[in-house]
């Protein structure tokens, strides 16, 4: 159990492995985690957490299959190979919301978004005007709910650039801190965005203004580089530390046991 911690820092990790390792730290033992489609980084992170510091992390794969034991990360995170060997099927998917809407369970949710803004609002709907869009994005799906119902949101973004991390989203399809400050709270919404893990840095939200804040930059990435890749001015407080890199054992687990086919790499470079 302690192996992964005692193991030395990896010297040949790749950025996807670092992101998986960082995301895994958001989940503690006996948390409940669920995933949606195209969620290779979060699924790898759940499997890593279960293999290391959170063996009793409850995983509801695809919001449908409880405690699955997939041999490896499959080619889809919303198909039967992920949850074929489950303890329970949430057979009628509508029933999932009896657990997710209740404030006591499934409190943390990992989110990918085409656009994310300085207050953690997400856009998966349209670039441009809603009725006359320049780009039609896939749609808000469950994220439109998760943003408003008190969940703690953890964003991942494998392509940190000024088009995906923007000052203001073209369209709010999931609620973050809205216009910042107390605006979210004033609507009676609890929870909200907690962290953002990108290919450059780890970020969170400054408690008062709710503006995105730099927590750490990944080894080899400077604060300036991160700022240049961001569509607005990040909150930077004092010296910004370097992101903790995965240990050799974490990298071995990811490469050999969890995701030998490298599905986690699919989300990069789009």
């Amino acid at each position: 159990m302690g192996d992964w911690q005692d193991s030395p820092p990896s010297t040949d990790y790749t950025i996807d492995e670092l992101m998986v390792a960082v995301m895994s730290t958001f989940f503690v033992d006996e948390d409940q985690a669920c995933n949606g489609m195209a969620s290779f980084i979060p699924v790898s992170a759940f499997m890593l957490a279960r293999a290391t510091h959170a063996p009793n992390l409850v995983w509801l794969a695809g919001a449908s299959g409880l405690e699955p034991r997939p041999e490896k990360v499959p080619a889809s995170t919303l198909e039967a190979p992920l949850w074929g060997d489950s303890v329970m099927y949430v057979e009628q998917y509508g029933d999932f919301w009896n657990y997710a809407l209740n404030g006591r369970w499934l409190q943390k949710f990992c989110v990918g978004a085409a656009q994310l803004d300085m207050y953690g609002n997400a856009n998966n709907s349209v670039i441009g005007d809603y009725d006359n869009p320049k780009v039609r994005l896939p749609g808000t799906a469950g994220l439109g709910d998760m943003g408003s119902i008190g969940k703690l949101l953890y964003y991942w973004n494998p392509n940190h650039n000024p088009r995906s991390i923007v000052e203001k989203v073209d369209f709010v399809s999931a609620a973050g801190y809205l216009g910042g400050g107390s605006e979210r709270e004033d609507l009676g919404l609890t929870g909200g965005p907690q962290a953002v893990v990108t290919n450059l840095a780890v970020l969170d939200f400054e408690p008062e203004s709710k503006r995105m804040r730099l927590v750490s930059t990944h080894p080899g990435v400077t604060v300036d580089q991160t700022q240049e890749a961001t569509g607005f001015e990040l909150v930077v407080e004092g010296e910004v530390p370097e992101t903790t890199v995965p240990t050799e054992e974490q990298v071995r687990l990811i490469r050999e046991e969890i995701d030998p086919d490298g599905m986690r790499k699919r989300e990069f470079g789009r």
Partner: protein
Amino acid sequence: MTKVTTIEDAIASHVQDGDIVALQNMATQAAPMAAVRELIRQGKRELGLVVLVGGMAVDWLAAAGVINRLIGAAVSMEQFGLCQQYRNAVERGDIAVEELSETALNARLGAGARNLPFLPTRGLIGTDLIDINDNLVMIPDPFGGTDIVACKALVPDVALVHAHRADQHGNVQYEPTILWPDIGIMPKAATKVIVTAEEIVDTEVLRRNPDRTVLPGFIVDAVVEVPYGAHPTSFPPSYGYDGAMHLEWAKGARDPDATAQFMEKYITGPGDQAAYLDAVGGVGKLAAMQNWEA
């Protein structure tokens, strides 16, 4: 009085131009693709679609000009990318999208099934999706809490679903798998229900596992036997998605000529499901196929 018919007759008799069609579907999973192909072959027009998550079915229907509006939470083929033909049609203004969160879509359909004017949700509060949608209205909590979202009842004209087995009365059974809302609520909200099934069996077969029967015959209007009726989407636990065909479509859909060729080769060319199965390599190949790849 049997409800068993052909897919041609089921679609011709029960789907009218302009209808709102609730379509079983996920990104790569369990869509009634034989029924979708028949909608295209019959040249249906101005249909509205209701999907939780639409995949290749939506893209085919968009490419063929069958649909002019969509009510749903997402459209994507997951690892095979966005649906390009759908996306193009929306960007051209040919398809209007009513984008809903999952709870809002469930609420609209649940209210439709239960003859309620609306069901409430706390999803979407604070988003722009409420502002652009007259079917979502903020209402006060009569018990003194904060406002919530009333989601107006939605009653599709017809629901299309694919099942593992059904009997001639329209009783519908599924193997143990995840039943997305397209099974859980769409057929109960819709005015008519068309079921395609991998096989039609005697009612006695259903009686062996009454817990696996999930739709009662009295809500079903037509039943059609269509082996591999969900191909090229997956139909767990019976078969996986056809990754090669998804890749072929995803690649071709970026190019008009390739799209037209694909449509001719697999959809408008083959006159029926048997010809379609031949066109995709035959039942022998499908049975031997390693699924869930790519």
